[in-house]
Every structure is written in C-alpha cells, then in structure tokens.
C-alpha cells in the first residue's frame, strides 16, 4: 500500500468511530444517550432554517454575477497584468469563481481537463487552486448566518486574501517548482 492508501483507510474509520464511539463512551458514563441526542438534534434543525436568508442573499447575487458575463469583461481587463506573473489566461475564470461557488469552479476544472488534458500545466494549476482554497463567500454566508451575525469585520477580506495568495502560489509552484 502507498502512504496515500493508509490515509484513506484511516479516514474511512473516522466517521464510524465517532458515530458509534461517542454514544458508547457516553453510555458507559451513565449518560441518557437517546434523550441527549434528540435534544441536540433539535438545534440542528433550527440552525439550517436560520442560514436560509443568508444563503439566499449570497448565492443569488453570485448567480447573477456569473450569468451576466461580467467574468468575460474582467478577464479582458485583467489578462495583461496576469500574463506578467505567468498566469495563463484560461486560469482566470478558475481564480475568480473559486471563492464564489464550489460547483461552478468544479465545472471549470472539468472543462480545463477536457480541453488541455490532465497533465497540462493549466489543468494542474487549476486543480491546485481548487484543492487548496475554499468557497469563501459560501463559508462566510453559512457560518455567520448560523449565528445571525451581519457585521463580519475583516472575515471576508482575510479569506479572500488567503484565496488570492493561494492562486499566486499555485501558479508559482506548478510553473516553477513542480513542473
């Protein structure tokens, strides 16, 4: 087995261990497990309902932005700058969409692999960006929505900075280090 396989085997034990282990451990300590579980599960429902307005607000704005073709204009404007840091033009949609939507950026990755092949630098850069950054807008909406927080201070700025650095690093790592 390769090291990767060990990690995978380990991870397939994590979930059952928690789902069975927690109640078992609690039972041994004399906790009324069923009653406690139901009590906790009730809050899960409330949380899902609480995030709906935040999710709607964030996702519909993102969807409109994507459908308007604003990305094409942005690409047109940014390409001269980006080609200087060695970033291929085809990678730009990935860099812009990644913090906005997970499914959208997944589709872009699939498209790049189809057009250029999985071994092309641009595909590998896109995969690295996809793998190492997150859908920051979605996470902000869901996490702060769950606790009804509207003033998020520097959360979005810091998240986007991390995403931006991730894009630059991915381009540099694939372009120069892991050719």
């Amino acid at each position, binding site marked *: 087995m390769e090291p*990767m396989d060990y*990690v995978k085997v380990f991870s397939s034990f*994590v979930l059952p261990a928690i789902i069975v282990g*927690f*109640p078992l*451990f*609690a039972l041994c*300590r004399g906790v009324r497990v069923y009653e*406690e579980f*139901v009590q*906790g*599960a*009730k809050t*899960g*429902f409330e*949380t*899902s309902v609480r*995030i*709906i307005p935040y*999710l*709607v607000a*964030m996702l*519909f704005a*993102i*969807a*409109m932005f994507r*459908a*308007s*073709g*604003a990305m094409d*204009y942005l690409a047109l404007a940014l390409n001269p700058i980006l080609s200087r840091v060695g970033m291929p033009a085809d990678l730009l949609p990935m860099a812009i969409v990644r913090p906005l939507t997970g499914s959208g950026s*997944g589709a872009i*990755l699939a498209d790049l692999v189809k057009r250029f092949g*999985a071994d092309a630098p641009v595909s*590998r850069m896109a*995969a*690295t960006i996809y*793998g*190492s950054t*997150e859908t920051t807008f979605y*996470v902000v909406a869901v*996490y*702060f929505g*769950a*606790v009804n*927080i509207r*003033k*998020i*201070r*520097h*959360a979005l*700025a810091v*998240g986007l*900075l*991390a*995403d931006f*650095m*991730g894009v630059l690093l*991915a381009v540099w790592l694939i372009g120069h*280090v892991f050719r």
Partner: protein
Amino acid sequence: MLNYIWAGMLVIAFGCALLTDISDLHKSTYRNGQALPVTIVQHPGHDVDVVIAPADYQHFYGKEGKLAASYPGTLDAGTLKFGKGAALPQPLATVRDWAGESEITARVVNNNSLLFQPVRFVKLNAISNAAIEMSKTAVEIAMGLIGVLALWSGLIKIAEAAGLLAIVVKITQPILGPLFPDIPKGHPALATIALNLTAGMLGLGNAGTPLGLKAMEQLQELNPRKDTATDAMIMLLVLNTTAIPFVPSPTVLAYMGIQFTTVYVPIIMCTACCAVIGVLAAKLAGRLPMYRLQPEPLLEGKVA
C-alpha cells in the same frame, strides 16, 4: 465591506448584462428581422427536414457553426418548428432557448428562408432567471443540511454530556489556545473547533460544516455584541477555509485521475502557506482601525 461587495455584484451584473445586450443589438448578433436562407425538404404530412448550408450560416451570422446535416421539424401553415433537442451552434441555440420553448418557431419566407422571432436583451433575462433559480437552490442546500446538522448536533450533545469534549479540549489547548486567545481555558468551543478542523483535514466535508456551525454557536455565546463577528469567529473561518486537505477532495481526484499524484504535494504546500498567511492576516487585520472592535465597558482592563 460585505454590503459593498454584495451590492457591487448586483450592480456589476446589471451593468454587464445591459452592456452585452446593447452591444448585441448594435452588432445585430441575432439578425432580428432578417431571414436565414435554408432548404426545406418536404415529406408527406407536416414533416419536413431543414437543411442549413454552412456557407449560408457563416454568411448570415458572420461566424462558423457546427451544423447537423439536417434538422427534422414540422411545417404548418407557413410556421416551421424545428431543432428540438438538437445541438445547435451559437447564436442559433440562443434563438431557440429565448422563446422558452424546446424548439425554434420560425416563419417561412419565400419558401427558402426562415424568419426567427426577434431576440433582445438575452443577458438581462438571464440574470433574473439566475437570481430566481439560485434562490430556490439556496433553500434546497439549507434543507439538505438539516439531516446531517441534526445528526452531528445530537452526537456533540452526547459527547458534551459525557465529558468527552473536556478531554479533547485538554489535548488541543496547547495548539489552539494561542490562536484563540479570547476563548476561556477549557471552554468546550475549543473541542468543537478541534473536531471541525480535523474533519476538514480528513476530507469529511459532511461532518465539517455541522461541527463548524456548532463551534460558531458556542463562540456566539461568548460574544458580547451579538451582531458583530469576534476575532475568534474570524480565526475559525480562516482555519476552516485553509484546513490542509490530507485526504484529498473527491472532485479533484475525479477530474485529475492519475495526474492527481502530481498535484497532491503542491496542494498541501499551497494550503499550508495560505493557512499561515490567513492566520497572520486575521491577527493583524483585527487591529486595523477600520476593523477593531470598539471597547466595551465589560471588556475593559483586559490585556491585549
């Protein structure tokens, strides 16, 4: 800032859509009011085959299109319907989708050319549709979360009651403590955060979100201003978005196939760097005048 970004997205979307639509009208991208030359092969009854010559198509729309040899359709009293389910080249595909029907409806002119319905303001309609569709999707996403959220919230409640979280806190305090200076020592929020980050690193996205939301709720209990994010919340968010994916995301694996081995190490390195940058940025940005929390009487006297 979120207010400006959000409103900005809407305004930019409207502006770009309008710009594209006006430029389409100006350039007459859809050739409204002009007829496309075609050959109509009649069969018994109303059935016909529509043949569009590539040369005619290119001449008419000013760009090449990948056309089928012929498109089956129906002809009834000068009204031709065709293109149902067929792969049509742009801009013909937009002409079809525009009417909101599954096929193109055109009027036959002089027996040898087709006059389509005029197509205007495609993008403006597209953004409204996107907004409506996505608001439905957002609710579906939230509804999809109910089950997993309930499951994990229940398990955490059990772990809490059994004192299991206190044990996790003790183990992870030395690592997480310095990152979350505002969380009191031994507080259960640290345990939830530890579990949340572990789930992220192990690629257990389904478990990660409920644990993260639970942690947010615990942090909210410590928050004196209920509508404003605390430093700890922002730190949790940053660590979440930059959790090192030791178990890779299934999406990357699926698309990259065997080539995944060439990006695994870059992804780990890239995420690790992002995490460091994110943590430092969160710590520093929290002190900027624009983001600093206004001191409250309750919190005064605390050493920064």
